């Protein structure tokens, strides 16, 4: 597949690989030494050995074929390096070096020249001015930042630093990425092409994009239309506040801020629009679950507050609380204490243990009026309960019923929830910490399902 030379290269050259920990080329090579699916060669004009590995003076000296070159040399050497890569027969270049289009007209011209050279040799460039790219499924970290957690979301960021920040945030929160791509100035490879590649990537269940600006809106829309038919695309677009005070002679022109037009393009092509980083991640994570058949949600909880807050969020996003069948409520009454509420949201109250979670989740999933289940737990630290029994109960029920209904979890007990969260995530059940996050995740699943049904 196209771009496999970026994400599954047989051999990588790190041009500008360094022994000096103060240089980016040090981090990039250090990260790539862990690469599983191919060889990694350091290229350094001075040092014979880089980080214990035999180095080459020029990419052309490498005795092996090279698919991918990661370039971290100073700007003045970039052009010659790109030419060398072309002569070597390199297919993809990740150009980390900065100082091009982002600096002004002269930089833009130099950038275009690099792309022309690359195309002449049949090469493609990601960057310049980027952090690099990662594929967590083969341990390829071709960046100068630390590893992302392995997972199912492909994340493309137009800001390198924000991308890095989100990578670290997601590691902490236990959210995994399949690919991380910092696309920098998008001098050559852009959102449209990456999206199309990721659409066919079996390791990515959803595509999340952080966008600051798109050069060719029509090309983006055409790609997005195709891609959203295959998998969900979630966009966070920066620059909402830019006012609609565009010079315009018409009423319409004065009302059309650039964000409104972007939003229109996203909606029209089936992209989910996130307003914040957390919304983007919450939505993207939901797609480890199957799509719901309808918009009727059952909520089970051991605490009233989180149940009501989640019900509010469900309603805000146009989903409905399922009307449970009489038979379901009857059966719930049989084992839940008298103070429990058997009407949706089902409040099993704080005494509920793993067994009650199992039985309740099972009954709710089996109820044909229910399209989706949200399992809420404020993990109790009393009455001899273990921190994972509730999660275990939900998992057992999901495995037993196994009827294709999506299940999302909301575990609201801060660090106390950690062991339970880990367990659920391992089973592919996304766990959230805030009602608004699980709410928008449920919305994302339903929205994509609804579009598919049309």
């Amino acid at each position, binding site marked *: 597949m196209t771009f496999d030379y970026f994400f599954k290269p047989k051999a990588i050259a790190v041009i500008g690989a360094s022994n000096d920990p103060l240089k980016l080329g040090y981090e990039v090579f250090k990260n790539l030494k862990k690469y599983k699916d191919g060889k990694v060669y350091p290229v350094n004009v001075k040092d014979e050995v880089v980080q214990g590995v035999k180095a080459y003076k020029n990419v052309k000296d490498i005795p092996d074929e090279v698919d991918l070159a990661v370039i971290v040399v100073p700007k003045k050497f970039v052009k010659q390096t790109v030419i060398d890569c072309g002569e070597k027969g390199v297919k993809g270049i990740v150009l980390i070096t900065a100082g091009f289009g982002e600096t002004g007209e002269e930089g833009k011209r130099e950038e275009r020249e690099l792309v022309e050279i690359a195309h002449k040799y049949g090469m493609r460039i990601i960057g310049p001015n980027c952090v690099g790219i990662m594929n967590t499924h083969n341990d390829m970290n071709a960046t100068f930042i630390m590893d992302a957690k392995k997972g199912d979301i492909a994340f493309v960021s137009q800001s390198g630093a924000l991308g890095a920040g989100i990578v670290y945030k997601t590691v902490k929160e236990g959210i995994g990425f399949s690919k991380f791509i910092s696309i920098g100035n998008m001098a050559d490879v852009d959102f449209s092409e990456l999206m199309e590649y990721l659409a066919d990537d079996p390791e990515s269940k959803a595509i999340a994009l952080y966008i600051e*600006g*798109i*050069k*060719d*809106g*029509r090309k983006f*829309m055409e790609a997005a239309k195709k891609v959203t038919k295959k998998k969900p695309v979630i966009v966070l677009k920066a620059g909402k506040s830019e006012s609609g005070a565009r010079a*315009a*002679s*018409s*009423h*319409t*022109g004065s*009302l*059309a801020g*650039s964000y*409104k*037009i*972007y*939003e*229109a*393009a996203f*909606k*029209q092509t089936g992209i989910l629009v996130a307003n914040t980083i957390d919304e983007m991640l919450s939505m993207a994570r939901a797609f480890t679950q199957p799509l719901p058949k309808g918009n009727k949600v059952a909520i089970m909880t051991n605490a009233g507050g989180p149940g009501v807050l989640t019900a509010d969020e469900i309603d805000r996003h146009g989903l409905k609380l399922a009307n449970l069948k009489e038979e379901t409520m009857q059966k719930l009454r049989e084992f839940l204490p008298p103070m429990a509420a058997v009407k949706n949201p089902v409040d099993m109250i704080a005494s509920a243990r793993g067994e009650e979670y199992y039985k309740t989740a099972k009954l709710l999933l089996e109820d044909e009026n229910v399209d989706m289940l949200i399992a809420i737990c404020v993990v109790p630290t009393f009455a001899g309960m273990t921190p994972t029994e509730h999660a275990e109960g939900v998992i057992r029920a999901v495995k037993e019923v196994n009827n294709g209904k999506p299940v999302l979890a909301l575990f609201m007990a801060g660090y106390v929830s950690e062991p339970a969260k880990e367990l659920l995530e391992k089973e592919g059940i996304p766990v959230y910490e805030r009602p608004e996050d699980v709410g928008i995740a449920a919305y994302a699943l339903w929205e994509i399902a609804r579009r598919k049904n*049309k």
Partner: protein
Amino acid sequence: MKDEALRIIEDVLSKGRKALVEYEAKQVLKAYELPVPNEKLAKTLDEALEYAKEIGYPVVLKLMSPQILHKSDAKIIALNIKNEEELKKKWEEIHENAKKYRPDAEILGVLVAPMLKPGREVIIGVTEDPQFGHAIMFGLGGIFVEILKDVTFRIIPIEEKDAWAMIKSIKGYPILAGARGEPPADMKALVDMMLKVSKLVDDLKDYIKEMDLNPVFVYNEGEGAVVVDARIILK
């Protein structure tokens, strides 16, 4: 369709103008079968009297001048004219007002139009974005657009489902769907209009910069909609 619209546009361009007056804009819309009122451009008072008789009183007079695009500011619209006497008086009045507002105003004629029965007001507009090209806008007219900015956009060309999604996505949708015991508005007619505007702009994207159909009156279900005023700005 396209040829007729282009003829009008080329004619305006040949006169060194970038803005179509209402009459010209409506001719372009008419070429694409958008619903415009049965109205005529009178060059003389006698013509105006004749057209008013044809159309039937009450009528509206709107003075057409390329230099005056804000007609109500210049007070060159006269509404609800009930008879010949009144028409003669108003004819003088709007000509005087035009002269006061812009002494150099070139007068192309006076549009004689039927007095339309009021409907729910909506706005359909077009703007051009540097990244995405032309986009169509939809919203409710009056305070909804002025103050609440309750409008929605889609990139042209749009499909029927996009037009429906636009109508349903504005906050004021219940007003069209029929709030407080009112019958629903003719939303099908609006969808049809939006698709025609999309086609028009897609065909003429090299010429058109911006466009306002404002207001459009939409009547109850099955009774259609009509473009009351229109403005087209060329590139």
